[in-house]
Each structure stands twice: as structure tokens, then as C-alpha cells.
């Protein structure tokens, strides 16, 4: 990784990272973010994450990036999964069990239908 010597270096790194991120969000690509704070993990976020990765592998899906994040403060609704399909607005789901995660992948990511009963109004 490059060492940063001044503000211009920082700006350059920032732009490169942004560019990389833009490629990821280019149309058709899907970003799945799982809340993995202590509260999320305690509520079963690891199982949810595993179910998502398994389903992607099993169904041989492509163009999906799965990342983690910390707690967003809605500890009550953990495990939380945020899904962004292409340039559509981000959808936040609460109480995502492995079962629900598979439904999200099938209905939302696969068929473009938001899983309404687990959606959190933000």
C-alpha cells in the first residue's frame, strides 16, 4: 500500500478508491452489506452472512459484492442487511435470518422484488 506524504496523496488515494467503488456500483451490480457489530453477530449475523455466501456459491451468482459494516444503532432489528441493486436506492432489511436472506437474494436481487415484510423504513 502506498505511503501518504501530503494532502495531495490523500486526495489521489481517495479518488482511486472512489473510482474502484463506482465500478462496483455500476448498473447491474449488487452490493450486499451485513451489519456485523457485536449486536448483529449476537443476533446471528454470521449465520446470515454464511447463508448469503453459500447461496451465491450454490446458484453461481455473479456481480454481487458482499461486505460488512458496524452497527447502525438499530440493535433491536439485528441482523440487518442492506442491499443496493445498481443505482436504485438502498434497501435496509431487519431481522434477517438465513431463511430471509435466501429470500432476499432470490426475490430482490434475482427478480427485483423488494421483500416488503422485512424492510425497515429509513
Amino acid at each position, binding site marked *: *500500500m*502506498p*505511503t*501518504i*506524504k*501530503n*494532502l495531495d496523496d*490523500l486526495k489521489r*488515494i*481517495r479518488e482511486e*478508491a*472512489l473510482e*474502484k*467503488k463506482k465500478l462496483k456500483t455500476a448498473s447491474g451490480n449488487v452490493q450486499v*452489506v451485513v*451489519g456485523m*457489530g*457485536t*449486536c448483529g*453477530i449476537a443476533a446471528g449475523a454470521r449465520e446470515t452472512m454464511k447463508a448469503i455466501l453459500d447461496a451465491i456459491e450454490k446458484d453461481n451468482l455473479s456481480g454481487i459484492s458482499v*461486505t*460488512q*459494516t*458496524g*452497527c*447502525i*444503532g*438499530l*440493535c*433491536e*432489528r439485528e441482523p*440487518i442487511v442492506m442491499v443496493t441493486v445498481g443505482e436504485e436506492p438502498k434497501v435496509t432489511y431487519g431481522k434477517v435470518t438465513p431463511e430471509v436472506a435466501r429470500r432476499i437474494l432470490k426475490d430482490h436481487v434475482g427478480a427485483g422484488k423488494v421483500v416488503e415484510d422485512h424492510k425497515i423504513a429509513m
Partner: protein
Amino acid sequence: MKTYRAMVLVSNDPLSIERGSQQVYTKLTEEIAAYGLQDEISLSMVSDIGRHDAAPLVIVYPDAVIYGPIAPENVHTLVEEHLYKGRVVAGLQAPLKEMTGRIAWLSARKGTLPAEQRIVLERAGLIDPESIEDYIIHDGYAALGKVLGEMKPADVISELEKSGLRGRGGAGFPTGTKWKFVSKADGAQKYVICNADESEPGTFKDRLILEGDPHSIIEAMTIAAYAVGASEGYIYIRGEYTLAQERMHRAIIKAEEMGFLGDQIFGTDFSFNLHIHSGAGAYICGEETALIESIEGKPGIPRARPPFPTTHGLWGKPTLVNNVETLANVPAILRRGAAWYHSFGTPSSPGTKVYTMLGNVNVTGVVEVPMGITLREIIAIYAKGMKKGSSFKLAQTGGSSGSVIPSSLQDTPMDFDSFSKAGVSLGSGALLICDEDTCVVDLAKVLLNFFRVESCGKCNPCRIGTQRAFEILTTITEGQATLNDLDTLLELSSNLAMMSNCGLGQTAGTPLVDILKYFRAEVEAHIRLKVCPAGVCTMKPHVHPEEKVHQHA
């Protein structure tokens, strides 16, 4: 508590009363009843909300529309149009000029509540905490670059002083002033410590920051080290926070690789190294001098103060100790300026506060809101009301050592000065919200049991006082106490507050004093009538389960 579809607040500060807020309140009650809305809309008085030019104010939630000045004759239109038909009465809205602080915040978000104002938690839950690139994309390390490139240490401190940031660990000490003390202290070697030993029961805001946005703490500590002239830093993370420790560890390695830590940061002569120290589960190590002892490898026992850590801290050297949330504010302030920071919160307590909501409420979790929001608003808007239709009895702010807030104080703006004026303390930001099924004596017993176990035992008032107070509370719950015991409890509390060496003992008596001040009748019922009004205490001598077994054997 019932669920209402709307909440109406009427300002009730002296100026508003002078201008007829009582009549407005009476008229509102009548009109709401006239339209048959009394079961759908809650109406309450709220104390000073800082908008004197338009007093008396009427605020309608969930739309967060602010009306003012409102006269009794406007009330009919307001109720008919807004509450009955659901249309905002534009002509009665408070003028937009000079909107600052909290009112500006509410106004900017009207119709979109519940929204939060996130400064500290800006990136938590948004970025990948394990990715330094993600942090940089969201303006990470820009403040550090600006500070090292353009500002002298004294400028950094003066900007922080101007911002009015106050310590978020509980005491509310001005952060800029503390930084100045350390920078002025004599000594070539200085240290910066981040107090992440978040051990107040019910508080988990720091964990959220550490797990969700670890680089913000690294950036803030590096800025702090530059400002005070330190070259070494420690993050003292609570032992139970293993995930936070792992993420912080990886974040430090990444930051070192990219040159945000280590030698010649940003191409300057400034060097700073950061280490993680894991706590071992002692509540007392959240006290800054005990924390310092613990880093030095000694038992976590607080030192006598003065001298303060700002001059004689870690290994006797000047040391800056700041809480996680305090530090998380620093990069944002330096990036956007002190004036920007002052646009949130109240004049004496600018900025936001992170609260952890827990207890008998519908939604538990973490919120970040501007300073000066009232407890009633937090319960109604963010916690979505009390659970199962119960009613609010009391809240405990700031974990075990915090104050007990009765329902009569739930309209006090939550900032450092308003709270200390009301004789309570804001503490670390935990809000334990209890309904009417909570027994105050039982609550106090649980708290004192905690203190009695966690007391380090260095000084007599704390070691013996917490034990005796626990014993007296136990006799009250067993129906064995006399009224004299209440006087003894108060005497114990005042001795604890006056004679203890550190914050643990000094605050251990606070809940006792508060409970006897606000809920004395309930405590006396335990003694005079031998009943527990909340139905929690058994009023029978407690037999230890093991003893029972032995008797049968």
C-alpha cells in the same frame, strides 16, 4: 404508555408563561377534546427550548412543526387545521430567522422525523470498518492532513476551545481546556490515552464507534498527540470488547502501512505510535487514574488527585485522557470548523450526544441527537413509546453512577447545564427507561450491589459505605427496616459523596438520594405498611437457595 398518533408540546419557560402559555395549554386541551382527539393526541408542557423571540411555542410531532408565538385565539385554527385535518398552518409557524441550534435542526427535518443528527456516528453502519479506503472515501484523515499541513498545535487547541466541545465520558469537562493543560505541562515525554473501558452498565455507544469506525479514533488521537506534543498513545479497550479490539488492531496496522501513524506522518517531523491495552473486566478502570495504573501494570486502584493526569499521568508524565465519543467529535470539528459545530445543540453544550436507549421501551438501540433534546422526545420519537402500554416512571441516565430522573423532569433539556441546574447529571449517555412495574428500592439495591462488588477497597467510605447501604436496602425489601434507616441511608450517601477518593464512591450514593427525594412515599410504604407498591419485593427474609437445600437434606 398509550400510543398516540401525534404529540403536542407547549413551551413553559418563564417568558412563555408570562406571555400566556398556560392559557394556550388550557385552550388546546379544550379544543382537542372538542374534536374528540384526546385519545389520539398527547399534550404536554415542555420547559425552555431556546426560542424566545417566538414564545409561547407549540410544537407538533411527528411532523416537527414549530408554531409561535401562539395566542389562545389561534388555538382553534391550529387544532382544526393541523391536528384534525392534517394540514400545516403556514401563517402560524414560527418565523425562520435566527434559527440556531436545536430549533434549526428540528425545522430542517420537519416531516422527516425521526431523523438523527449524526456527527460521531456519521460513518458507523455505512462503511466497512476493516477497509481504510472506505474511511478515506468518507473524508477520513482529511482533518489530520489539514491539521499537520496548515495548523500549529496552538491553533488546533484554540479551534477546539472555540467549538465548546465538552467531555462525553460523563463529567462534561471542556475538552479544549484539558488539551491546553497537557500542552502547557512541563516534560519532554507526554502521552495520549483513549478511554474505551466503557463499563457503565447499559452504555454501549463507544463499542459502536470502535467497531463501526475505528479509524476515526486513530485520526482523532493523532491530532490530539500533535496538539499536546505527545509521541505515544494508548487505547484502553474494555476486555469484553474482543471484536472492537480486533478491528482496532487491524485498523492500526493499516494506518501504519499508509503512514497515518508512525514516523514522519504526512511528510512532517511529527511521529506518533499507538498501542492497544486490553482491560481485564474491572469497572473501576474506567476512572482515569485507575486506568493509568492499569496500563502501568498495577492493580486498577485510583490515585489521589491532585496532581491530575494532565501533569502527572502515565509513568508520571503529562497525559491526556479522553473518552471515545469525545475524540470521535474532533476530526469533524477540525474539518468543518468550530462555528459549524456550534450550529448543533445548545449554546453551553454544543454538538450532539449519543444515547443508548434501553429498558421498558418499544425500540432499544443507539441514537445520536443534538444536545438539548428532552427525555420525553427521545422516548416518544426514537424509542417509539413505552412497552405494552405501560407508563413512564423513571429513567436512569448514564449507567449506575447516573441520576434517577422522575417523570416530573422529563421535559428538562438534556444538556450539561440544564441537567446540573435541575440537580441531576447527564452521565455517559445510557438511558435506562423504567415503567411503573419497577420498584425503586429494588432498583437501588441492584445498583448498590454493583458498587459494593466493584469498589476497589482502597478507601473506607466507599468500601464500607456501599456495603452498609446495600444491607439497609436489603432489609427494606424484606420488610425489616425502620424509618431511622432512611436517615442512615442519607447520611451514608453524603459521606460517600464527600469522603470517597474517586468517582465510584462519590457517585454511589446518587441514586439513593434521588430515590428518597422523588419516591420517598414508595420507600416508606415498604417500611410503614410492609408492602411493595410495585409488587417486586417479596417483603420476606431472603433464604439462600443453597441453605434451603441443606435444610431439606
